[in-house]
């Protein structure tokens, strides 16, 4: 028989920790990281069992808890003052964790209070503005506009136009470039193979090339194979194609 288990969704690791603490009927100040760590890990295991995706934050907290637990077992390494400053925001001790939990709990409670307020003020209604048609609207059409608004508007348009033209010129440049035909490419390749036995496909292109060049070259190669001029082989998938002259 199928049965479902509902797991509470927690807003992050701190939320889950607060839940575990309240379930254990502990005060935040009195938490024992050792106890809570096991429960935290158990919870993550449970989530995994039900195929609930565990966000990375939960795993980071798990490792933090284990770290703090281990620090409590072995004598604490002395940290230099520099280190301390650098890790100020991190949770590297029980004390820091507790501080963080207390702060988080405050805001969580405040969230609850906001919810109450929301429930109350959701019931306040407003009315639509009255639509009153006024006479002489046209007199106000240009209200506040001066000749300098005209100047600035025109200047801005001129700048925009220049930019647009610049962009258009660039675009034209790209289109203008001429491409060789497949036939021409075949001829070039044949000549190259007269001087060399082997060619690398990748080596056929200069540093800057275009997709069309690659396609035309590839089509030229296919034609050359059909004509039995060359054979191609590849050492691995997506690797370079070696072109060899036949015969």
């Amino acid at each position: 028989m199928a049965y479902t288990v509902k797991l509470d969704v927690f807003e992050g690791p701190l939320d889950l920790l607060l839940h575990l603490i309240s379930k254990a009927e502990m005060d935040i100040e009195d938490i024992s990281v050792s106890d809570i760590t096991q429960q935290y890990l158990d919870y993550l295991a449970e989530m995994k069992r039900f195929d609930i995706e565990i966000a990375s934050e939960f795993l980071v907290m798990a490792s933090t808890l284990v770290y703090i637990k281990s620090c409590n077992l072995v004598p604490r390494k002395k940290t230099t003052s520099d280190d301390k400053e650098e890790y100020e925001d991190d949770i590297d001790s029980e004390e820091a964790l507790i501080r963080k939990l207390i702060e988080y709990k405050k805001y969580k409670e405040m969230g609850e209070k906001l919810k109450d307020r929301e429930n109350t003020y959701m019931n306040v209604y407003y009315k639509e503005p009255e639509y009153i048609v006024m006479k002489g609207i046209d007199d106000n059409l240009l209200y506040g506009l001066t000749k300098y608004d005209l100047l600035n508007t025109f200047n801005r348009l001129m700048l925009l136009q220049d930019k647009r033209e610049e962009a258009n010129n660039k675009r034209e440049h790209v289109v203008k470039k001429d491409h060789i035909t497949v036939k021409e490419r075949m001829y070039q390749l044949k000549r190259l193979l007269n001087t060399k036995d082997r060619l690398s496909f990748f080596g056929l292109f200069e540093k800057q090339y275009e997709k069309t060049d690659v396609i035309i070259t590839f089509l030229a190669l296919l034609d050359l194979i059909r004509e039995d001029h060359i054979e191609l082989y590849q050492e691995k998938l997506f690797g370079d194609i070696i072109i060899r002259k036949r015969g």
Partner: protein
Amino acid sequence: MMAIVENILFVSGEAVGLKEIAKVLDIPQSAARKLMDNMICCFDFERRGLQIIKVNDKYQIATRPQYAKYVNKFIEPRQRERLSQAALETLAIIAYRQPITRMDIEAVRGVKCDSLLNTLLDKGLIREVDRLDAPGRPILYGTTDVFLKHFGLSSIDELPPLDLNEYE
């Protein structure tokens, strides 16, 4: 109960029928009518800012005429219909480039502007000054005296000078 009706009339914005009022309050229509008559008197007696008006067994909350002066003073600046950004742009191009055809205006703005030109023509800010001696004889637009007057110009030469070199 009057408070409830006040809330309902307020959110409604329109006149509310006696039937609806009775339904919301869950009282007979006759009682609702009595209540509403009472409410109208009450609002008047207490010299409330707003009044309840009755039109054909429908009730509506409304302002009082004696405060119209203030309401107008309040509303006026809000209702000013301003020239849209697009219209202002078109007007600026015409001002500086007149006489100019629609095609040339559109070339500068990069978008069509037929309806904008019609608006500006309607408002008397631009006019047809001539026709270009070219195929189709396109209209040449220019600004009007209304335009000059608004911007405090005695002639179009008084527009702030453009430094075109800056953009070349």
